[in-house]
């Protein structure tokens, strides 16, 4: 993992939401890498890092296959940041179920959370420890105390499968628990026939960007199949990269959609300006 491996092709600019918003190359992977290659210190480019949403759109299209999200997180770790209030959770019981980590937004919405759990049925359980503080720490580039990490991971080690809403946490869990299969909440819901059959050609389906890009090579086929089967439009650009919901106006430009269906509850707010109703997958 090295900034000197960037060849400067600029493909990352095409998909970078920070670049789409500002047209300022400094805020992009290429900008950071080239600046480092030509002598800028991590401190000198520290202020450029805030623009990155860690959506991971740049990773699947990088011809050098650079771990660009990890590189941003590493740069963020090198700068001072706010302290995270880590949860003082006791070690929960081992779970042999499929464990769902619903993320901050869905976790705060009890009714929708229960509806989501209901879609999965028996053998599935919501995690007692949601790991949201760890997700915050990952995003901010703050170190995670080893004791807190092991308390979080211990009950998950025997899980049959993990279903994770938050993309950065999913990415980390795949590394922390390589033997436990982990998929995104969006993928887990979107394979359900009960949900697939309710999607309409007039819908705009909003893929959650972080988990999609983290497993893009596999998931691009999954979502292509879903798009084919349902006929719905998706927040994909021509490279089959998910445009994050923060770019909602661009996603909707030139499109007439009857409903907006989001995988990630926290994406709904970005479409609030639209006349079309915004639904979570569990609302279908």
């Amino acid at each position, binding site marked *: 993992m090295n900034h000197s491996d960037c060849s400067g*092709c*600029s*493909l990352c600019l*095409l998909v970078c939401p920070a670049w789409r918003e500002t*047209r300022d*190359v*400094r805020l992009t992977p290429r900008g950071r890498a080239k*600046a480092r290659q030509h002598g800028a210190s991590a401190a000198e480019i520290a202020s*450029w890092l805030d623009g990155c949403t860690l959506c991971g759109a740049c990773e699947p299209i990088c011809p050098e296959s650079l771990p660009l999200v990890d590189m941003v997180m590493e740069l963020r770790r090198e700068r001072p940041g706010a302290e995270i209030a880590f949860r003082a959770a006791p070690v929960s019981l081992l779970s042999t179920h499929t464990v769902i980590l619903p993320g901050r937004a869905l976790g705060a919405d009890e009714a929708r959370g229960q509806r989501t759990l209901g879609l999965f049925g028996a053998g599935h359980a919501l995690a007692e420890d949601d790991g949201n503080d760890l997700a915050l720490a990952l995003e901010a580039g703050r170190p995670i105390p080893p004791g807190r990490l092991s308390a979080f991971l211990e009950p998950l080690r025997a899980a049959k499968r993990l279903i994770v809403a938050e993309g950065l946490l999913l990415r980390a869990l795949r590394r922390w628990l390589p033997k436990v299969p982990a998929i995104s909440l969006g993928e887990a819901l979107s394979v359900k026939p009960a949900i697939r059959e309710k999607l309409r050609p007039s819908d705009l389906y909003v893929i959650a960007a972080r988990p999609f890009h983290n497993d893009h090579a596999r998931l691009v086929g999954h979502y292509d199949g879903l798009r084919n089967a349902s006929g719905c439009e998706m927040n994909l650009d*021509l490279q089959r990269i998910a445009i994050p919901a923060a770019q909602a106006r661009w996603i909707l430009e030139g499109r007439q959609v009857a409903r907006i269906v989001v995988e990630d509850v926290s994406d709904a707010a970005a479409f609030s300006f639209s006349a079309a109703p915004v639904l979570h997958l569990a609302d279908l």
Partner: protein
Amino acid sequence: MEVLEDTGARGIFATDAGGTAYGMPHGVVIARTAVQIAHLLQAAQAHGVPVTVRGGGLTTEGESVAYGGVLLDMTGMSRVLALDKDALWVRTEAGIFWAHLAEALRRHGMDYLSAPLNLTSSVGGTLGVGGIDVNSARLGCSADQALALQVVTPTGEIVECSDSENAELFQRVILGYGQFGVITEATLRIRPYTPLRMHYFYYSSLRVAIEDLQRLDASDASDYSGILTIMDKAINLLVAFDSDEREAQFDARYRATLRGSGEAAFALRMALHYALRPWRWGEALYLWRRKRQLFPEFRRKEFFRGDRMHDRSVVFSRAVWRFWGSRQMVIPDLATAAAKFADAVERGNAVCRKYFPRYTLYCVGIKLREDHRAHYEMSCIPPDATIRAYGCEFEPLIGEAVYSRDRLQSFKNEIYDIGVEIGASYYRFGGMMKGYIRRVFGDALVERHLAMKRAADPAMILNRDVIF
């Protein structure tokens, strides 16, 4: 006007896609409006400060590298401004990447005519040098799809130009290598979007493949055509179609006349070839591996509906960057009249073989517009070409190998020497290769253009290291 002067911001622009030319601007300005650029150029004229304009930075000879002065990053101007589906035109800011233009057009079921296969060329940069696509044999180079431009002249005037308005400026700016103005907006021809169906024919002879390519082009037998090779072993003639009707016409009239073979026959021929040459099994292994990596990239399911490829620019460009890109890229080229092309390619191929164990050739036709003959003066379009010019890029596949700059430069020189001998032109004759400009175009023409440049740009500030 904000001028970025910190090391980081300047360092971003220290080299171009070629990665062999280096220079540092004193400051960087992100383009936002034509008025801002006009003020910048007026100040630069007054104080004699060089201004280097950069779009996608995909030059390979340092043409978009600033050796001091101000670097103007045009990608800050990337909005699509207007679209008329009935009249088939789009107006866009010129710093936009072709990929983003394609994306905007697709929302309306439209597409551009032709653009370089790399996604991150900018519209303005491309119009200044040419822009070649696999449909250029039919639709011409990208520069020829410009209907009108907004240009900021080197002295800071904002001028609209086209074939009918300020035509002389239009002639100089199109294919003008950034010498006569900064393109800030462009009106381009567009067309309805269509997916395409591809066919590949394999050849063992470059000359035969080129003859077939030129015959297809002359007959208007396909919508897309080009030759892509791995060394001079896997020689692939690609043809593709926008419609069933065009494809049926090709099948009925032309397919049987092609001397290339299908994939299976090609594999058999290669197997026999290398079975008799065990000392070249390393090359055979390379070809096999390359095919195994490359072919799936051209057949990714998410870009196909049935047997039709969608978003060809993405499919081709992804492959280009993944399999042809590297940290150093030298891509000398020759552009010739049709009759000289096979000779030029064969001679260039011999130079490639001499310098590099692995390389690729990319050949394509470029339909010319007689009414744009004035645009072509001192450009990549060779003066003796009529109806169609042909271009070939000679690209060593450098990968992780390390070559000295001397070796890379000597390779380029030998290719360009061929151009001088046969009376060709080049796509990349600026920057580090500008020493060839007088040799290939002659002093009289260059002096005439230099006089025009001095009149238009008294302090010689705009892109001063590119041509003159």
